[in-house]
């Protein structure tokens, strides 16, 4: 029998995004409100001066949330519903399964992304090249968070811990770190701590691309390299730990 890869991807998107959003619209509202709420707070507190950074921060948070949600969802589907066990004993491919769930997370945050993309167009006015650079950084951010989500999912055995961990990651990497505001607002000694987070590099790249932060070309290259390197390392670690058949 010829097996369709697109069907396998569609299955993940239907189960983990479409059916859930259709049957429980409340989750859609939460996903949209989460990045927008920080944006609104930052915009009011800064009297509009950090609106651009806040809109871009919302984009980064949405992409990061998509990746960390992968961790909770993979763990939920495996440990709570035993869905992964059913798929292990089937012709389903582990790579396609993971890719499908990852894609479903993008679908899940797509309403928020659409709103934020429109706000970016209105308040940041990026050129086509700047837009491309922002998109690339967001994609890399998504890959990083997907890899992190996948890595932590391989360790997780309990759904309560898994969801709590997922929220903790989002808090640490998108709320506290300078994603919604420029890194220059952080006092110097603490600034080094912010550089432990991959989202800081993504935010710098995005803010620099849209002229909201001034960086030298060399510095931007370093940010790209760190973000890419971080992604590769986490991907390799997670691929090494991942097991389709249990030991």
């Amino acid at each position, binding site marked *: *029998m010829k*097996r369709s890869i697109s069907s396998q991807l*569609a299955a993940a998107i239907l189960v983990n995004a479409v059916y859930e959003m259709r049957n429980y619209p409340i989750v859609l509202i939460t996903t949209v409100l989460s990045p927008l709420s920080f944006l609104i707070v930052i915009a009011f507190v800064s009297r509009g001066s950090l609106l651009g950074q806040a809109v871009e921060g919302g984009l980064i948070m949405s992409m990061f949330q998509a990746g960390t949600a992968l961790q909770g969802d993979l763990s939920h589907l495996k440990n709570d519903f035993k869905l992964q*066990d059913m798929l*292990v004993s*089937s012709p389903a491919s582990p790579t396609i399964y993971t890719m499908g769930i990852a894609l479903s997370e993008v679908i899940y945050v797509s309403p928020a992304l659409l709103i934020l993309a429109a706000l970016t167009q209105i308040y940041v006015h990026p050129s086509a090249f700047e837009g491309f650079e922002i998109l690339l950084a967001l994609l890399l951010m998504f890959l990083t968070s997907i890899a992190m989500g996948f890595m932590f999912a391989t360790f997780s055995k309990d759904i309560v811990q898994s969801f709590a961990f997922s929220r903790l990651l989002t808090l640490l990497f998108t709320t506290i770190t300078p994603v919604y505001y420029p890194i220059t607002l952080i006092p110097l000694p603490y600034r080094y701590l912010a550089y432990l987070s991959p989202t800081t590099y993504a935010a710098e790249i995005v803010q620099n691309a849209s002229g909201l932060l001034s960086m030298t070309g060399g510095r931007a290259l370093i940010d790209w390299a760190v973000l890419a390197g971080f992604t590769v390392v986490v991907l390799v670690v997670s691929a090494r730990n991942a097991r389709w058949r249990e030991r």
Partner: protein
Amino acid sequence: MGELVCESLGKLYGGKTKALDSVSFSVPSSGIFALIGRNGAGKTTLVRILATELELTSGRASIDGIDVMRQEKVLRERIAIVPQEARTVSWMTPVQTVLAYLLWRGFGYSEARKRASETLSKLGLEKNAHTMNHDLSGGTKRKVLAATALASEAEIVFLDEPTTGLDPISRKEFWEILRVFAKDRFIFLTTHYLEEAEEVADNIGILGQGKLVAAGSLQSIRDRMKYPYSIKLPSGATLPSKVTGEVIVGKRGETQVLTNEDEAFAISRRLSEGGQRFSISPVTLDDIFFQLVGETARDDEGD
């Protein structure tokens, strides 16, 4: 005809907890095979190994000549499983559940949709096909899960305790469904219900503390038993003084004697001569399980 073969199959968890201990048996890979055993006997471990979900520690196993460890990709083309602790996804309906599973197996959308509807109808679930899973009864949810595997093209289906939680009528309906599906596929099921194994299985395996204590058709297992006959006497009846075999006295004073054929007829004759009421029959699976797995098995069965 193909075979399911296990040779000295062993499984250690964490390098020390023995779940399966040198399990060896072979049964035809057709019809229904029921694996019975007490809680913790190793049923689920054996199913998970055969369904390529779990690595074995020692020995080997194959189905139709396909090695479960070395040829798992080939085997996965032909198998499906419903794990013991599987749950329906609460935010989906039965038709969405079966459809998604078939899509994951690589079916095209229209074929998957057709198979999902047909299978749900065969299982008597057409009325519930579009009800949210969280609104279904526990038994219906189990049927929906079984429908996923049965709707697929898999020729070998593992069902780990599929009727747990079903009421007696639903369980009997489910047995009928299993018989229909087993006409053109091999169904490997585990169960706590001895009556279920006796009723639906073509072959039976009995696991006790990680060891396989018997496998084959009920008749062949019965033939190998030391005591293939059972005599039951009501409370207050008196047994002949000297009896060869095993005598079990129930909580309400009723007596059962498990014995060999000659002794069974000798006892019967003496009971008849004494005008006592009794019944005589070949041992049931319940009796066999009791003899092989141990006395406390009967209490466990009632759980």
